[in-house]
């Protein structure tokens, strides 16, 4: 796999006796779109601020692209972009001026910066309004400008904190496309959001944070298996003209834990993805196989299993 971009070891943060982040171990590799989930106050933003070197950890260590954000904050900030939840721009400056200022703060050479800003404004679809004051922008436009703003420095890693809240559905689509195109350019994305269906759509891996702990982590399907099906694969099979012995012969199959039937539908629970083996069994038994699907997990359901007791 790719290079490790973010690695934390027992990272903790305590504010006046309140533990915001508690022994967090996180590992994010290059090119991932990592969905960082958790209810408000779970410690997501605190974690991001620690990774940026804006807040000092109480204990534990963090590494971002091989740098320690507490010791070498400037090096980290050179290659990391942060789009805060309530992003703001200088309202009386134009979009272009705002981006130029960011470029200047990053010490980009002027002509290179101008070229890059022009390209980025086109990428985020703000070329038409580049010379308008930001005060005239809608919330969605500001968010897109925010994406351009963190992109100016050509980061290796970006943190997006709730980039899709309070923007209209069309704006959300634009936003997701932009995030995807960032990832395509090789930028690692850490995406915090409460809009689970969006996270599910674009993230390659997901981490769920609760009370400062990472309670679950992994790609969506393995997360679902762990949290909902107790680590099992669930396969739903529809058959016709079922052989009466089919149920028993399926139950005998290696790796198959449980078979339940309801009319023409069988629910099979197994240790691994045994779809081809099951199909063969059904056909061999002389029954007709009408359809088969493996259970897909919605992030919404997975998320609820962690937080329904709260």
């Amino acid at each position, binding site marked *: 796999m790719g290079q490790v971009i973010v690695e934390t070891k027992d990272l903790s943060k305590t*504010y006046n006796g309140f533990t915001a982040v508690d022994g967090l171990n996180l590992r994010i590799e290059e090119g991932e779109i990592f969905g960082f989930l958790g209810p408000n106050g779970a410690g997501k*933003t*605190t974690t991001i*601020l620690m990774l*940026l070197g*804006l*807040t*000092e950890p109480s204990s534990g260590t963090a590494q971002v692209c091989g740098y320690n954000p507490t010791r070498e904050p*400037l*090096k980290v*900030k*050179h290659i*990391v*972009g*942060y789009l*805060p*939840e*309530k*992003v*703001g*721009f*200088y*309202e*009386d400056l134009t979009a272009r001026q705002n981006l130029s*200022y*960011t470029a*200047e*703060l*990053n*010490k980009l050479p002027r002509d290179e910066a101008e070229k890059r800003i022009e390209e980025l404004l086109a990428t985020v679809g703000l070329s038409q309004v580049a010379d308008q004051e930001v005060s005239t922008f809608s919330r969605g436009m500001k968010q897109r400008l*925010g994406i351009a*703003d963190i992109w100016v*420095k050509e980061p290796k890693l970006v943190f997006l904190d709730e980039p899709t809240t309070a923007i209209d559905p069309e704006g959300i689509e634009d936003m997701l496309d932009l995030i995807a195109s960032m990832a395509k350019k090789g930028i690692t994305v850490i995406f915090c959001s409460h809009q689970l269906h969006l996270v599910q759509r674009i993230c390659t891996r997901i981490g769920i944070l609760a009370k400062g702990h990472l309670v679950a982590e992994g790609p969506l399907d393995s997360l679902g298996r762990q949290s909902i099906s107790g680590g099992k694969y669930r396969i739903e099979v529809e058959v016709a003209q079922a052989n009466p012995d089919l149920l028993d012969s399926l139950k005998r199959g290696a790796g198959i834990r449980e078979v339940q039937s309801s009319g023409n539908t069988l629910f099979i629970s197994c240790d691994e993805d045994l779809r081809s083996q099951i199909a063969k069994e059904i056909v061999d038994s002389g029954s007709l196989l009408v359809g088969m699907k493996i259970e897909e997990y919605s992030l919404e359901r997975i998320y609820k299993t962690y937080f329904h007791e709260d």
Partner: protein
Amino acid sequence: MIAIFRKELADHLVSKRFLILFILVLAAAIAATYIATQTIRGAVTEDTEFVFLTIFTTRGTELLTFLFFLSLFIPIISIALGFDAINSERNSGNLSRLLSQPIFRDAVINGKFLAGLAVLAIIIVSVIAIVAGLGLRIVGVPPGSEEVLRLIVFALISIIYGAFWMALAILFSILFKSATTSMLASIGLWIFLFFFMPVIANAITGNAAVQMMVARVSPCTLYGGATSVLLVPELDESTASILYQFVGRLPTPLPFSQSLLLVWPQVVGIIALAAICFAVSYIRFMREEIRAI
């Protein structure tokens, strides 16, 4: 830091705030000068050595001197330019974006402070130059080289005085989350120091030394004393009372070098007060945890 300085300076120079302040100060300065030039003939006697400087310090029958106007306006300009330096960035959501750029955190304060100070310097220097030019035209007496020197030092001290108020305003903009609160706090402190501190000092009767100490805690008193010494080399009664080491001396003009020596403690006092504000700002801002903003 240079990037921040440049942006802040540009922001100030095109802001309505700057335009209003400049017009205000200019109008007051011209009015004061006009009054002064009308009454200057009565004020200048045969013995007056520094005719040109009296333009800045002569008062009409009711209206006040240019010097007084400037001592009134410098804190107002500084506070107006600095009171929302940090908290406006915070409230507009720019601060976290700014601090996630590869810059040192103190560069934000430094850049803003220097930009404000540059604007203040522009206002002070241009107003003094305009008044001097106006005075020259109306009175027709060219300034001597010593008078020019005194004016330059006067401008410098005025800028230092402004630096104190700027540092104070920036400190309040860090301490208070709301821009309105920080402005009220700065203005309130200014009113206290400018109007009430002398009253409190006067109320302490009996011990002249204690009275003097109380009065000189206030940067307003320090500035008033220093500028009077510079612009009124003859040292009238009221000035002398601030500088107690000169109580009872003969009313002859002081040489420039002696004036400088005399204002030195006052200037150091103002610089020290500014440095304290600045140090507190630094500590507060650098140590501040940037939490979910």
